[in-house]
């Protein structure tokens, strides 16, 4: 791959607008994510962070605007890609959900190897071997044959990350990955995410973990009322924000913690 292509943004979002009924959720978002960048999206609840993220893999369809991801127009002027092409593109965009959404009828190994077997055409043996390697990475090899119901929240989320990685995505989306976890389990999930970031994975992370944003984020995006009110390197956002609303939000979350 030439340097020119490698340097081009992996995610390019333009004038993204979305409303549910008559409630405006996204009021025109423009944003680029460069390869290997870790973008952390913060903001008060109801600010449209999750909807923004979900637009990036077509789980939500915006009314207007465009989303270009991995070199493909996922949404062009409010028109989403046809289903078949969308399915292919989604293989390149991993998603991790707040509520894990592990498949309860499959073992940990089954959860991870299902996608590769059905979509990448891997044999069961190959898919299982890949899954085991991923489990090693997230530190859960010993749980390969456990059912999801028997895992802790932190373990479930690490399996969910491994499941998304099994499709060999080029971008990973994290939608509040630690918000459903007991406080003592947050660390193990963030650790896996840090590992991914250090390996150069392009990541978009919606989170309330300010330490993670500060430590791992290349860019912090602050959203409020469906728009990006401010974005920049974490040092700037956390120590010297331009917007009053950012200051107020950070004050509220940081004093709580």
């Amino acid at each position, binding site marked *: 791959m030439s340097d020119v292509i490698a340097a081009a943004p992996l995610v390019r979002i333009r004038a993204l607008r979305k409303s549910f009924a008559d409630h405006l959720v996204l009021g025109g978002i423009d944003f680029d994510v460069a390869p290997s960048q870790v973008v952390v999206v913060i903001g008060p609840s109801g600010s449209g962070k999750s909807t923004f993220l979900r637009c990036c893999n077509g789980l939500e369809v915006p009314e207007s605007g465009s989303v270009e991801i991995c070199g493909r127009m996922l949404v062009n002027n409010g028109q989403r890609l046809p*289903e078949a092409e969308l399915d292919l593109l*989604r*293989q390149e965009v991993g998603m991790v959900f707040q509520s894990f959404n592990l*498949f309860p009828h499959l073992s940990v190994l089954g959860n991870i190897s*299902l996608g590769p077997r*059905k979509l990448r055409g891997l044999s069961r043996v190959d898919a299982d071997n890949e899954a085991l390697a991923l489990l090693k990475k997230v530190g859960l090899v010993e749980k390969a044959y456990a*059912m999801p119901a028997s895992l802790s929240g932190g373990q479930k989320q690490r399996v969910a990350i491994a499941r*998304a990685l099994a499709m060999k995505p080029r971008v990973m989306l994290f939608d509040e990955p630690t918000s459903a976890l007991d406080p003592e389990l947050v660390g193990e999930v963030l650790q896996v995410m840090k590992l991914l970031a250090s390996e150069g994975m392009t990541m978009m992370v919606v989170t309330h973990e300010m330490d993670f944003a500060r430590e791992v984020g290349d860019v912090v995006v602050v959203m409020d009322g469906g728009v990006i009110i401010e974005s920049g390197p974490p040092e700037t956002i956390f120590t010297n924000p331009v917007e009053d609303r950012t200051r107020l939000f950070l004050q509220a979350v940081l004093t709580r913690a």
Partner: protein
Amino acid sequence: MELDFSPVWAGWPQLLRGAWVTVEITSVSLLLGCFMGLIVGLGRLKPERRIVYGLCTAYVAVIRGTPLLVQLFILFFGLPQFGILLPAFFCGVIGLGVYSGAYVSEVVRGAIQSVDRGQMEAARSLGMSSGLAMRSVVLPQAVVRMIPPLGNEFIALIKNSALVSLLTIHDVMHEGQKIISVSYRSLEVYLAIAVVYFVLTGVTTLVLRHIEKRLRAGGMVQ
């Protein structure tokens, strides 16, 4: 008045033959009912696909809104007016299967809709098509939830199958009535028929309970 079960003992092989016909007709109808129920239940998931949704909804409304006996008579006595002469067994199976399919479809739809939306989203976000996600993620979970209400449906089907005796099908009900017509021992024979149905429904209940238990033990249910 004294009970005299001798016609029942004497007619036992005949009743068993009839019971076997009942088993045959209910199992074939059950397969047909499940097949139709699955198709129609899936067809009613997305109201925005108007034609499919409309057809499936009309089917459920008409079949649930009219008596099974009338449906069976239309098939067996009504259609011949148009020169459509179907064998009795065929009419029985179609009638029972189509009838039960309408109820099964609601069971299927309810079970699918009870699976958390996040399951479909997780599968789609991996890149699965909606069909593949339905087959490999949503349906396997929905099937477990279908079993208790399907059990009710199967039992209703077994009992409803007694109506096909009126289409000259030689099921256990029909055979019993033949015994009564020569022995005049209504109470005893009907009691025997009741026992046959009770055994059939009981076995069905036990089998389904066993299946459900195994699926739960396999971790299929959260």
